[in-house]
């Protein structure tokens, strides 16, 4: 039985093997007729399989000569499957980690408490630059996240009509305030760059994990290494976001879909990174660390806070006698807000 089936199989396979031997083309066709299929070539070109080729069209417009844009679907899939999914999960995860950290570790207190003796840290101009960038960033982050994650998260809650109004406002607001981000970013670059250059001693901060690993505070100058890294992240990634955003916002310079799709991906990845890290920055600058918000709120910080978090700068403050005693500081605060800076700079100049 078995041998019979085997023979049958061989018998069935043999003719096919014979066919596979010789080239099958043009065997049964009359001589002189080319059976070369030009269609293969045409449709390969239309589908852009091997090359990015373009035809011509009487309809003038960006990419109007391209019949099929094969990259479009790739971009759409990447946006839906990777960008929005992992972006959303990533930001939510960072948020959860920080909440968990706060629950476990609580607020980092200043050793020895507040002294009441203050030291000047930021001028009014510097604080205006910081808060302008912060507010513009937050606005762009929220409107951008509405456009990225709104369809899965908000649309089912509000319904299409209401969400459309929200998304439309987000898009217009995002486009309008986007260029302001670049302006405030450049202001930030000019006023803070020098103090954010890396210097000796920054490595020890990194080795101690910014004070997270082991006991005691990690050493830091006017800005510690974490702040410096955050600053350069904001500047560099921010510039990438701003440039890719400008490519996206004005489609009248003839940039094609390929460039715009790519810009969108770069823009979104950069933004997700900055948003995720900014949650950490906001936490450490407010409820995470006692006395930290004072510097950006009033321009002055407690000397004990400076000694604890920025010991090298605190040392300079002690040596150069820049500390404003509590009574003096109270008197300064009583005066008009505008004059506090002049007093402080005069004092710094001593």
């Amino acid at each position, binding site marked *: 039985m078995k041998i019979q089936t085997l023979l049958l199989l061989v018998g069935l396979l043999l003719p096919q093997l014979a066919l596979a031997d010789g080239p099958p083309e043009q065997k049964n066709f009359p001589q002189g007729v080319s059976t070369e299929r030009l269609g293969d*070539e045409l449709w390969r070109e239309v589908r852009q399989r091997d090359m990015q080729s373009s035809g011509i069209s009487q309809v003038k417009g960006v990419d109007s000569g391209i*019949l099929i844009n094969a990259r*479009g679907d790739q*971009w759409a899939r990447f946006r839906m499957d990777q960008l929005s999914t992992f972006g959303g999960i990533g930001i939510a995860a960072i948020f959860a980690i920080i909440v968990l950290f706060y629950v476990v570790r609580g607020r980092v207190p200043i050793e020895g408490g507040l002294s009441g003796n203050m030291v000047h840290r930021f001028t009014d101009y510097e604080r205006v630059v910081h808060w302008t960038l912060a507010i513009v960033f937050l606005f762009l982050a929220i409107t951008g996240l509405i456009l990225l994650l709104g369809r899965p998260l908000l649309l089912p809650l509000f319904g299409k009509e209401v969400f459309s109004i929200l998304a439309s406002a987000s898009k217009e607001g995002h486009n309008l305030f986007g260029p302001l981000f670049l302006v405030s970013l450049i202001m930030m670059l000019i006023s803070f760059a020098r103090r954010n250059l890396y210097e000796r001693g920054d490595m020890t901060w990194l080795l101690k994990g910014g004070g997270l690993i082991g006991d005691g505070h990690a050493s830091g100058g006017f800005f510690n290494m974490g702040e410096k890294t955050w600053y350069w992240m904001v500047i560099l990634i921010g510039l990438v976001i701003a440039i890719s955003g400008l490519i996206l916002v004005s489609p009248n310079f003839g940039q094609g879909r390929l460039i715009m799709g790519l810009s969108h991906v770069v823009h979104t990845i950069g933004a997700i990174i900055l948003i995720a890290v900014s949650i950490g920055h906001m936490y450490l600058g407010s409820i995470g660390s006692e006395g930290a918000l004072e510097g950006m709120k009033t321009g002055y910080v407690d000397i004990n806070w400076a000694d604890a978090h920025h010991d090298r700068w605190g040392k300079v403050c002690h040596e150069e006698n820049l500390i404003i005693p509590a009574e003096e500081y109270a008197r300064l605060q009583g005066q008009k807000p505008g004059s506090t800076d002049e007093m402080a700079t005069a004092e710094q100049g001593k």
Partner: protein
Amino acid sequence: MARMKFYCDAERCIECNACVTACKNEHEIPWGVNRRRVVTIKDGEQGERSLSVACMHCSDAPCATVCPVDCFYTTGDGIVLHDKDICIGCGYCFYACPFGAPQFPEEAAFASRGKMDKCTFCAGGPEEDHSSDEYKKYGRNRLSEGKLPLCAEMCSTKALLSGDADVISDIYRKRVINRGSSAFNWGGNAKITG
């Protein structure tokens, strides 16, 4: 239910652009917006072919997948339509569409995008059939009158076909078979692209 499709026969299209003009006229489409266009490949060379292209009403439309406000919907006839009251003019459908079908009127400074406009298979939009709102936003609704899209209906060489997918593919299949046999009968170097 029918499944509506366009098909353009590359062997027949003569790049007359009548479909483009008919579409613009029928729907009163503004300047700068073209729901349909004819693209010529290898213009002036051997193997030159033209194809008329518009929204192809995909079964699994990338525009609908990527739309952040979910403004697209597919009718019972398999036509992909969108709601201009929901559309926010972000341009994502234009990046995603393989055919470059979504069009955007330039609305304000820096060519900021208005609401998207595209081929409706002459089936109007979500508005009430034949209302002035529907005409203003989406153009004529010929399908509800029992007529097929004007571009295909008035194609002089019947290169552009529209209608139920089964009927269209039957017509095209017959064409291909006829061409195949005649090519051998000529005995020359006839090349077919079908």
